[in-house]
């Protein structure tokens, strides 16, 4: 799960990584109060989970209250990369002497943590890698050793930062590593890491991703999730019911059992000209209650014209799966068509049960997909 910048910065400050004074505002009032506390000039940063705010012109500066109110009104109206701005981070503006880049991430393929530092911050590190690779230093980390002073110093020296100046960066290297490891993070990125005109080193942005699997040992993750609203929360609530749910932008609701099969179903719908509304995996051994929750979740999207359910009965018998679907449908009183593909042990019995209840049931995946696409087109 990705964190908002302000959530990431909270972690940074817990690990003694300097951040600018500031706080999160959910309203104009909030923002004005924060400004009163920290003083002008301030920077206004809408909090969204995807995309690049800088490129979207969404980051604004204010030297006085008039400017502040003007910008806030505009920014609270913005929709960035499909996300409505509902929270804004208001921070004291810092005087930048130079921008750096520092990140830790897990290199899944090499199965090792990796640290990346660059003297070219404030832009995508992929871009720096293309245009100025000599300004980047990367290192795999032995997790038993972790980040230590000497490794940080070696990386800094490599890019020509030495002596007293280098020493100022070292604690940030070490503390970010500690946050990364102790908080079960997959990514902890500071871009840019700023040297101010006063020679201080400060993290002015935070891009942090935490491992969802670690929630049982990272109680703060649950707190963060519960504090959020919107779509994010719909996906979260699905997850609570052991359903993997991701919103897409089409009108065909998709339910599958197993992540790969569900992805393949989304793909097939696209191949045959349809627009998937979501990805929803009910996982293995789902009973009627999870089928109900799945349909419920999709209906909450509002714009779905047909639901396509693709079930491969592996260990479970298809007649039991059919029974689960019927129980679910009776409970919900579905008003849009449901197309089911059901295969595996006892598939004939299961299909017959569904068709008796007026639900289209197929053996062949492609036929089911075609039918769903056709129904969605007709629904327009």
């Amino acid at each position, binding site marked *: 799960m*990705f964190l908002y910048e302000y959530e990431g910065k909270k972690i940074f400050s817990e690990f003694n990584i300097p951040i600018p004074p500031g706080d999160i505002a959910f309203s104009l009032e909030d923002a004005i109060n924060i400004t009163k506390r920290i003083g002008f000039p301030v920077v206004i940063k809408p909090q969204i*989970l*995807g995309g690049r705010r800088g490129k979207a012109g969404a980051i604004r500066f204010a030297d006085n209250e008039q400017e502040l109110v003007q910008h806030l009104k505009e920014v609270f109206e913005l929709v960035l990369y499909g996300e409505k701005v509902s929270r804004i981070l208001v921070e004291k503006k810092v005087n930048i002497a130079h921008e750096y880049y520092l990140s830790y991430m*897990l290199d*899944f*393929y090499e*199965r*090792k943590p990796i640290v990346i530092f660059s003297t070219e911050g404030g832009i*995508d590190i*992929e871009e720096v890698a293309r245009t100025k690779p000599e300004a980047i230093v990367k290192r795999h980390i032995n*997790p038993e050793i972790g980040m230590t002073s000497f490794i940080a110093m070696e990386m800094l020296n490599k890019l020509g930062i030495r002596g007293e100046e280098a020493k100022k960066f070292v604690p940030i290297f070490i503390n970010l590593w500690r946050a990364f*490891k102790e908080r*079960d993070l*997959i*990514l902890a990125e500071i871009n840019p890491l700023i040297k101010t005109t006063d020679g201080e080193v400060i993290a002015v942005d935070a891009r942090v*991703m935490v*491992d*969802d*699997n*670690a929630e*049982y*040992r990272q109680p703060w993750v649950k707190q963060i999730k519960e504090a959020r609203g919107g779509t994010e929360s719909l*996906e979260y609530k699905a997850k609570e019911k052991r359903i*993997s749910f*991701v919103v*897409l932008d089409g009108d065909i609701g998709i339910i*599958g*059992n*197993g*992540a*790969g*099969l*569900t*992805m*393949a179903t*989304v*793909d*097939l719908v*696209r*191949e045959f000209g349809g627009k*998937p509304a979501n*990805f929803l*995996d009910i*996982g*293995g051994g789902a009973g009627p209650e999870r089928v109900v929750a799945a349909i419920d979740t999709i209906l909450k999207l509002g714009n779905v014209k047909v639901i396509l359910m693709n079930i*491969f009965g*592996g*260990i479970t018998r298809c007649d039991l799966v059919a029974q689960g679907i019927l129980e679910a449908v009776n409970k919900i009183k579905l008003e849009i068509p449901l197309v089911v593909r059901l*295969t*595996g*042990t006892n598939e004939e019995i299961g299909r017959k049960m569904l068709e008796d209840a007026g639900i289209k049931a197929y053996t062949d*995946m*492609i036929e089911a997909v075609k039918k769903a696409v056709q129904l969605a087109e007709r629904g327009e």
Partner: protein
Amino acid sequence: MAILVNKDTRVIVQGITGREGSFHTKLMLEYGTKIVAGVTPGRGGMEVHGVPVYDSIRDALEHHEADASIIFVPAKFCRDAILEAIYNNLNPIIVITEGIPVWTVMELVDMAKKRNIYIIGPNCPGIIVPGETKIGIMPGHVFKPGDTAIISRSGTLTYEISKTLSDAGLGQSVVIGIGGDPIKGLSIPEALKLLEEDPQTKRIVIIGEIGGVEEERAAELIKKGEITKPVVAYIAGKHIKVQQKSLGHAGAIILGEMGKPETKIKAFNEAGVPVARLPKEVVEYLREL
């Protein structure tokens, strides 16, 4: 003889007294898998479907000989269970459990590798050598003996494609569900290298997904000629562009440039590996080989 496991492999089931562990022990026994003992700490002395249960692997090994382990232990106890299997030299260790933190998986895979032990999974359906042994949770009846190997990051999609192959008369030498997590014990390239050496395998199917770079690395191996057997691939999620969100599998996530389906398809194409557009096309490509 197949790779990693075969009909003679003697298996310990860790977490045998749990719901899943007990259920799948029964199905594996029915398939013919040689399960010699189960382990659940604190439950030593019980029996599950006729299999004796011990508190520790070491105690089980006092009474039985065993080669491999399959793990159904809940995620929070998996570090301990996997370490126990590693320290008692069980090999391979098949981890069915979903939801183990990635840092823990990283630590454990590193330890296993240092001891030349294979971990399969976590978050995987296991491994099956059709007609010989099933150490996993897949429905045994969709597989048939043969000479096509399948490596897959998926579960049900693998059953789906395997069934298509079986129905078309293309039996399987081995089917390895490597799991849906971002870090796993056996990656696609590592599995490919094992299959290259396997005399029973004539051709290989890779069922990949978006996320990570395993498919790209596999394609490189093939391009370099390190894998000479014919390969057909399928990539799940190829029409999904969502950034930064996991699709069911924690490993199925696109981060910036990494994990995009187009890169994977391009890499396979450049290595001469046909990528099936529809799952059933896998059979057609295999027939064309």
